């Protein structure tokens, strides 16, 4: 079946440093979504990318969808302690189902 791989699994940074997580799918995706889960919380939707090569920004967060629609990335500029959590990508697997990556857990040293 479809697989979505996400790297790295963990990332520890100093506050103010940048952070990037990468997502790769074994198949072409119709769209990709990104979610954030705070420690002890539930996943919360961040954004959806649909078009090949699409780039979207939300303040310090930049999301990219690859030209082949098989990979995506999330980049955070100048991390803050509020960015702590696990970031998941999720690809549409048809029939209104999502396949989630394993997530990247971000911890920040203030």
């Amino acid at each position, binding site marked *: 079946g479809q697989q979505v791989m996400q790297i790295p699994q963990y990332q520890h940074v100093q506050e103010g440093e940048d952070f990037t997580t990468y997502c790769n799918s074994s198949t072409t995706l119709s769209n990709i979504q990104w979610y954030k889960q705070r420690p002890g919380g539930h*996943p919360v939707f961040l954004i959806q990318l649909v078009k090949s090569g699409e780039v979207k920004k939300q303040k310090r967060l930049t999301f990219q969808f690859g030209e082949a629609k098989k990979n995506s990335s999330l980049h955070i500029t100048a991390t803050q302690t509020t960015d702590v959590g696990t970031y998941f990508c999720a690809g549409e697997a048809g029939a*209104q189902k999502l396949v*989630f990556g394993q997530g990247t857990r971000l911890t920040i040293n203030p």
Partner: protein
Amino acid sequence: NAGVTQTPKFRVLKTGQSMTLLCAQDMNHEYMYWYRQDPGMGLRLIHYSVGEGTTAKGEVPDGYNVSRLKKQNFLLGLESAAPSQTSVYFCASTRQHPVAGYEQYFGPGTRLTVT
């Protein structure tokens, strides 16, 4: 709006016991999902429903059953709990609308321990 709610929040079961997890949403969403989350495994789809009265298997359906008798409710049942079912269970719903969007709204989760 309460969004997506889950009952109970925590539960400890003994091997072989049964239980039902309840998910309710007040957003009139057609699609509902049950996931389990284990360390390092991300979220894995157990079962899902694309409308009242319909259910379908996801990635890891064995040992679970579901029912969607009412549009707002999605029940997840464990007939005979096993330690391998120790996990955090999340319910989610979505409108799946081409204009409004496809984002999934998650409930707060149920932490289940099977001893």
